[in-house]
């Protein structure tokens, strides 16, 4: 496995910024971007997209339910059921993962999103230190965890 550099992974900072700017007209404030250790603080709702092809790993988007609710309300969505909130966070993960192909190329295959409620049960890692981006959007905390490496 050939490690991607931190500079390669910074594309996800731009992606998450663009996502919220475009869909809500309210950009997030990026708090930190760092190589994480074992404990990554997750929020209520998690969207996960797995990578395959010339790459391996996954990207996780984690947000509190209140943030996702507000995002949907800004988009004039009236269905605020849990399944729709999970769908929404899955779609954010799908967008970040798909957009990564613009930089990493079409050798990056992406899965359909999986969604998970709760703060525990992170998928198995490929990197010793995944790339973690923490941000605040509309006063709420969120994070993106990028666990991605090139398959040698």
């Amino acid at each position: 496995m050939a490690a991607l550099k931190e500079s390669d992974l910074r594309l996800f900072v731009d992606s998450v910024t663009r996502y919220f700017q475009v869909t809500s007209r309210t950009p997030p404030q990026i708090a930190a971007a760092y190589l994480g250790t074992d404990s990554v603080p997750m929020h209520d709702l998690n969207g996960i997209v797995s990578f395959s092809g010339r790459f391996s790993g996954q990207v996780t988007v984690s947000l509190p339910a209140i943030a996702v609710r507000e995002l949907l309300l800004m988009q004039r969505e009236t269905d605020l059921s849990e399944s729709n909130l999970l769908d929404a966070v899955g779609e954010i993960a799908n967008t970040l993962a798909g957009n990564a192909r613009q930089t990493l190329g079409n050798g990056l295959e992406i899965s359909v999103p999986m969604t998970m409620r709760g703060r525990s049960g992170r998928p198995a890692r490929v990197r010793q230190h995944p790339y973690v981006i923490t941000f605040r959007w509309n006063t709420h905390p969120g994070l993106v965890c990028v666990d991605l490496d090139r398959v040698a």
Partner: protein
Amino acid sequence: MKLLIVDDSNVVRSRIARIVQRGALGPVTFVGLARNGQEALRAARQSPPDLVTMDLTMPGMDGLACIPELLALHPQASILVISALTDKSTAIKALRLGARGFLPKPFDDDALQLALLSLTARKA
């Protein structure tokens, strides 16, 4: 104008429908809100669409597999691909398969309206 929306995300299907209903396309009839390519083809067989919005990454039949089959059924349909796969080769592939436009995700309301109007203006 008969519109078929194809996306595995309920939130995205719902959002596209709302934007279209508020917009400048004129009266629109929704012939289907499909979660993947198979559902899209089933809906299109029942009611031929004029306009289709098509996601690419979907479970079961994905968008790139669905486009040629849908156009084989209804060559007059205008397909706008709306996808997070924003690499150039994917967009080219979709257009070569017969899609008439490509709108990258994330998109805002205006970008979607303009993309759909541009497809309908081309048909007129």
